[in-house]
């Protein structure tokens, strides 16, 4: 059934090669993947400026500020996900390679998260502390953002695939992805709030984990379908 490939590469190896290639390409352009991180920092800085800089007040607001900023900067990063590869035709090559496209897109999404999501998670302790979170809350904040940002990248991949090559893709992408991200936002912010209040945060974390697993299984399939349609 599958189209014969000139050099038989197993899907696993192809995914790994794709990860290496994308990482190498991404690291060559630090300006691009650092932008979401800077954006995240700027937005979280704006929150205290726009409201009350009292630490006790900030602490109540910290989960919301962290998650809205994380959501917006992941949205900002999404445009980078398929744009280059869509323009130079390498995405088309992946689609006709005979390898499962969903798997390859999952690999691409993982690299995208490594470059744009992970720096944001790593910066979160500083931001959370600045917003008044106690030190003991940092592991919880990190865990929630780690799970949440992966899920946001996975969901975003579907939107990025659908808007691939559209002229006014940016705002549309936000309109498509934001409603789908509502559950992540709710459970993530709730888990963070519980962590900052130093209370057990297992319940929202389980739900966040369930959404992450569901997205990891279904989102690549939908993204692959979307990319194939966009490439037609």
């Amino acid at each position, binding site marked *: 059934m599958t189209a014969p490939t000139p050099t038989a590469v197993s899907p696993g190896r192809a995914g790994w090669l794709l990860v290496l290639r994308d990482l190498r390409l991404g690291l060559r352009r630090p300006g691009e993947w650092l932008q979401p991180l800077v954006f995240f920092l700027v937005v979280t800085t704006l929150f205290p400026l726009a409201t009350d800089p009292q630490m006790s007040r900030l602490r109540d607001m910290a989960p919301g500020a962290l998650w809205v900023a994380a959501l917006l900067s992941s949205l900002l990063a999404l445009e980078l996900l398929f744009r280059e590869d869509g323009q130079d035709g390498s995405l088309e090559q992946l689609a006709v390679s005979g390898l499962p496209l969903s798997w390859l897109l999952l690999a691409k999404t993982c690299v995208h998260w490594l470059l744009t999501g992970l720096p944001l998670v790593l910066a979160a302790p500083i931001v959370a502390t600045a917003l008044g979170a106690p030190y003991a809350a940092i592991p919880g904040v990190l865990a929630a953002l780690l799970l949440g940002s992966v899920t946001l990248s996975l969901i975003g991949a579907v939107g990025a695939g659908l808007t691939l090559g559209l002229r006014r893709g940016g705002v549309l992408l936000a309109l498509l992805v934001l409603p789908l991200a509502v559950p992540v936002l709710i459970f993530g912010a709730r888990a963070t709030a519980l962590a900052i209040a130093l209370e057990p945060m297992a319940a929202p974390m389980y739900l966040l984990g369930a959404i992450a697993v569901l997205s990891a299984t279904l989102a690549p399939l939908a993204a692959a379908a*979307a990319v194939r349609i966009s490439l037609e």
Partner: protein
Amino acid sequence: MNWIWFHRLGSPPHFFRIAGKMVPWFAWLAGIAAVTGLVGGLGLAPPDYQQGEGYRIIFVHVPAAVLSTLAYAVMASAAGVGLIWRMNVAHAVAASCAAVGAWFTLVALATGSLWGRPMWGTYWEWDPRLTSELVLLFLYLGYMGLRGAIDDTARADRASAVLALVGVINLPIIHYSVDWWNSLHQGHTLLKFGKASMPPSMLVPLLLMMLAFTLYFAAILLVRARGEVLRRERNARWISEAIGERP
């Protein structure tokens, strides 16, 4: 099980003709159901013992809310059928759902907030149902935005179908998460209508109104779908016969 009717519906000329014949039926039945439902709901039904006459908003609010979800379900199923069997007519039906569904959502939100003012004391409460209705409106707007951004009809059909299907998987999760989120912030709201606790004098008009809205939706859907079918099948010969243009 005979599937011939289904395959025949997939043929655009047949669909165009059948749909055109069905529209007046749906429209008239919707009108009759709406009139009887309104007489029952605004006239005969007794006032609610808690909310007095104010509860009568239910006869437009609940049908609109139900139809907003139903329209999304129809849209997603039609989109799925269109995607799997590459059926143009199904895509035409899916494309016709979005605008009507979005209007139902808007009506449900507006009447809900008008109902909330006397009952909760505020036009907008972050009530789980109102909140998920708002997210549903955004989903509709996203669907229409995607469709509008793609010029090629075939691509717009298939891309928006994927979006509709992703949305339909997400809707229960969104609904559940909003429910969960809200239960942390506030107690049960005043408005609780269990079906069992509702006397037949209120329930029958409500069901009639739901029927009327459903039939209305079917009629609007078919009118719009006929137009969409015409747009998709521009150069076929049957069109000139269907629109009464004798060659």
